[in-house]
């Protein structure tokens, strides 16, 4: 274990966080809010900590292996959230550190689960920071570190793999750093276009930025208790469209940039993704049409809710907790599936679901024809057996961990539906669940113990399980392998 490299990278990450905090700092100055000094203190702490850590852990060798990649990622995210929670506590607007930590983890992991009961009384600088954490966490803080800071190691692919979601993380271009840059450029272009389109719908710059950050990271923090319900249909449609965009694989946008349109149309994951969307929107619309006066409104609410859950954002235009059971069940299933690999969405990911389905079909065929030989194909290429089995193992962990978290919070005094959906909504980075944690409710009533558990669940979900497991296993930390 190259511990110095682990801490050194965490130090770099802290410096970057200090820089990122300037955005809310400047805006709270402009709003004339008193929370500015909370940001200043946090910037000081973050920068000082970063400099000290980097000075103390100048690495002897920059060689890292996948082990270090996992640990760097997990540790960075913990530190990132721990420091990111400070402005809320220092400003006194969220007095409890556990609550602030929950809120920040929820932000960085792009979950959008909140413990705040009175959003309208929060200062705008803090609300902006809360949403900005979505934006940073969506594409990944370490990917950003790679894009802007000179990376010390040739092997940063291990870090990228640990941080980026999806069963197989490939590069767009030969260099990791270039890849990270391209991803962030695409991300910024898309975010800015959403801000412009929201501005055109009559939002203020502050509102547009907050909601664009929330959609881009597929997070879901808003600034109103009823989320998006009071905004115009135009804004709701724009956000629906951008949720579709941000939950699709970012490699596709790179293919657009280099004008390889044919490859986009042949992307299997994309077609399955669009197919699920069309099917779900149709089914939900038919199921809920009695609740809304016009067809237009029915489809708008159905599409928005399907996308908010599938992209694991967690905005809402209506309280879907009041919908018929079929729609709620369908939404629950979509929470588990999530968006495409290589996007900012959470969940199991469509490509994994497709592979699981195909390998299930292959196993059935094997039972009928025990000697048959077949390979699983995805995106027109046969998938390595090791990848297929690793997807199976991932699914097993995915299910087992959610059951474990469910068991751990089971003593809370809520109904079954609330508890199941809180775990699923946190683990898959959706945010609002059903029952008491539905779009109209929130997580404030949970005990501190459960809040910490759910924060860990969110990190598990965002980093796709393994980094956190390795962070917690002492054998990985041994100096000698």
């Amino acid at each position: 274990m190259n511990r110095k490299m682990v801490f050194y990278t965490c130090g770099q990450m802290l410096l970057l966080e200090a820089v990122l905090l300037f955005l809310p700092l400047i805006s709270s100055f402009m709003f004339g809010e008193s929370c500015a000094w909370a940001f200043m203190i946090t910037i000081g702490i973050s920068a000082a900590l970063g400099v000290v850590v980097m000075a103390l852990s100048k690495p002897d060798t920059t060689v890292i292996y996948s082990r270090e990649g996992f640990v760097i990622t997990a540790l960075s995210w913990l530190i990132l959230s721990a420091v990111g929670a400070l402005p809320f506590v220092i400003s006194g607007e969220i007095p409890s550190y556990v609550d602030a930590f929950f809120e920040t983890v929820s932000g960085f992991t792009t979950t959008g689960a909140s413990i705040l009961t009175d959003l309208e009384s929060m200062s705008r600088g803090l609300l902006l920071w809360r949403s900005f954490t979505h934006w940073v966490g969506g594409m990944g803080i370490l990917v950003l570190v790679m894009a802007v800071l000179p990376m010390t190691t040739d092997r940063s692919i291990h870090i990228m793999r640990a941080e980026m979601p999806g069963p197989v993380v490939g590069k767009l271009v030969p260099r990791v750093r270039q890849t990270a840059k391209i991803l962030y450029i695409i991300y910024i272009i898309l975010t800015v276009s959403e801000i412009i389109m929201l501005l055109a719908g009559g939002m203020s710059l502050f509102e547009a930025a907050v909601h664009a950050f929330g959609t881009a990271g597929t997070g879901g923090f808003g600034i109103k208790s009823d989320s998006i319900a009071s905004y115009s249909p135009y804004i709701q449609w724009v956000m629906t469209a951008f949720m579709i965009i941000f939950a699709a694989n970012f490699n596709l946008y790179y293919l657009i940039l280099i004008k390889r349109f044919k490859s986009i149309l042949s992307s299997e994951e994309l077609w399955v993704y669009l197919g699920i969307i069309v099917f779900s929107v149709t089914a939900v619309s038919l199921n809920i049409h009695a609740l809304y006066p016009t067809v237009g409104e029915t489809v708008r609410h159905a599409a928005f809710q399907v996308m908010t859950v599938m992209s694991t954002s967690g905005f809402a235009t209506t309280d879907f907790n009041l919908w018929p059971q079929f729609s709620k069940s369908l939404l629950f299933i979509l929470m588990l599936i999530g968006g495409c690999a290589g996007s900012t969405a959470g969940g199991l990911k469509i490509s994994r679901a497709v592979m699981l389905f195909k390998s299930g079909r292959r196993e059935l065929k094997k039972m009928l024809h025990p000697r048959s030989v077949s390979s699983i194909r995805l995106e027109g290429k046969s998938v390595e057996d090791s990848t297929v089995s690793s997807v199976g193992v991932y699914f097993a962990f995915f299910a087992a961990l959610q059951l474990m978290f469910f068991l751990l919070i089971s003593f809370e005094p809520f109904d079954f539906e609330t508890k199941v959906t809180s775990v699923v909504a946190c683990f898959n980075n959706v945010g609002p669940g059903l029952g008491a944690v539905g779009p109209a409710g929130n997580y404030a009533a949970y005990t501190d113990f459960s809040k910490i558990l759910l924060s860990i669940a969110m990190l598990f979900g965002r980093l796709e399980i393994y980094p956190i497991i390795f962070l917690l296993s002492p054998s990985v930390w041994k100096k000698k392998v």
Partner: protein
Amino acid sequence: MRIIIAGCGKIGASVLSSLASEGHDVVAVDKNNAVISELTNVYDVMGVCGNATDCDTLEEAGTADCGLFVAMTDSDELNMLSCFIAKKMGAEHTIARIRNPEYNDSSLGFLRQHLELSMAINPELGAARELYNILKFPSALKIETFSRRNLEMIEFRLDEDSDFAGKTLFEIRKKYNAKFLISCVQRGDDVYIPNGDFELKAGDKIGITSSMNEMQKLLKMLNSLRKQAKKILILGGSKTAYYLAKMFESSGSVTIIEQDEKRCAELTSLLPAATIICGNGTQQELLTEEGLNTCDAFVALTGIDEENILISIFAATQNVPKTVVKINRDELAALAKKIGIDSIVSPKEITSNILVQYARALDNSSGSAVETLYKIFDGKAEALEFLVNADSKLAGKMLKDIRLKPNILIGGIMRGRSTIIPAGSDSILAGDRVVVVSSKNRLNDINDILK
């Protein structure tokens, strides 16, 4: 620049590693998925798994806008075909590994022209040339030659009783009246570009730039000139052995020991002058019988590095005047150097050097590009040859007026047919070829040596 390397076996992987560390955008193509995932774990490169002659694979690797396409698979035919396809898809330059003697002897020019290859690389032929140079001048550990052989970089190890040990370069230069320059010194793991006050010690490995005649003069003064090897014993009938034997056909006698009967029969018809022995060369008995004790030089060229090292240890105990070993794996070469096996030839390294030089020359769109490049002393230093053109900032300047970056030295100037070992009063003219020795710098252009 985007460089695609198709076929990442031993040689392909080593080329990939040196080009990636040069800062190029490298894409690896190989049909073996395990190889690709290993390479992408270790180097900052992109991997594409597929056949190097498949258009879809090549398109995915980005052939259309690549600056250099290198085909390094096992098969010559595959290399030629994939280079041809890559060229048609838009690759600017293509380089194929072509090592079969049948292609190299006669049809290479035709093939290169019609396949539009920028270069054909033959690692085995390169290794044979290097071996030939060493055997012609056995006093040296290694010889790197620069254009037209007017200047060479010759590596020696200083023994305990060497006349150079304990002297500064300034003293040595005064004492021996020959035109040579000690331009690079390796002590332990460190490499120095020395100045006049540098004091040499026994055990140092030094690199001298000089012309061959001057070098012989110097060695005569030092009483350590060794005759060129005439009677050569080669172990292993590889392609390298064939090329080497061919070079010695007129000037020496060569014995090749090869295990495989069929290969022996081929070699006899290809090399009528050489003695071909069919037998297991790892048997010490056989080696002694075939004259290991009486030969001038022993060359271990089997396909297995470990075997080559072990047998050359045995050869050293039999007092063979000169032993040269082919070692492909860097780790083993480092180990072999530790136990005193100094004369090592690596086809892999030769190929990497050529490609690194080619890529640097491509990077340098104008001006005085790299003509020849050698990585010396375990890759810790470089010896480069540049052609100085009239636009260069160096042209027409006296050496004492040129302010060089640290760790750079001008090792020699070739003007027409004459070689100048430079002193402060010499000057560089347009049209000169300049040899620069450098460590810790990356030089693309002759102007890069200036502060």
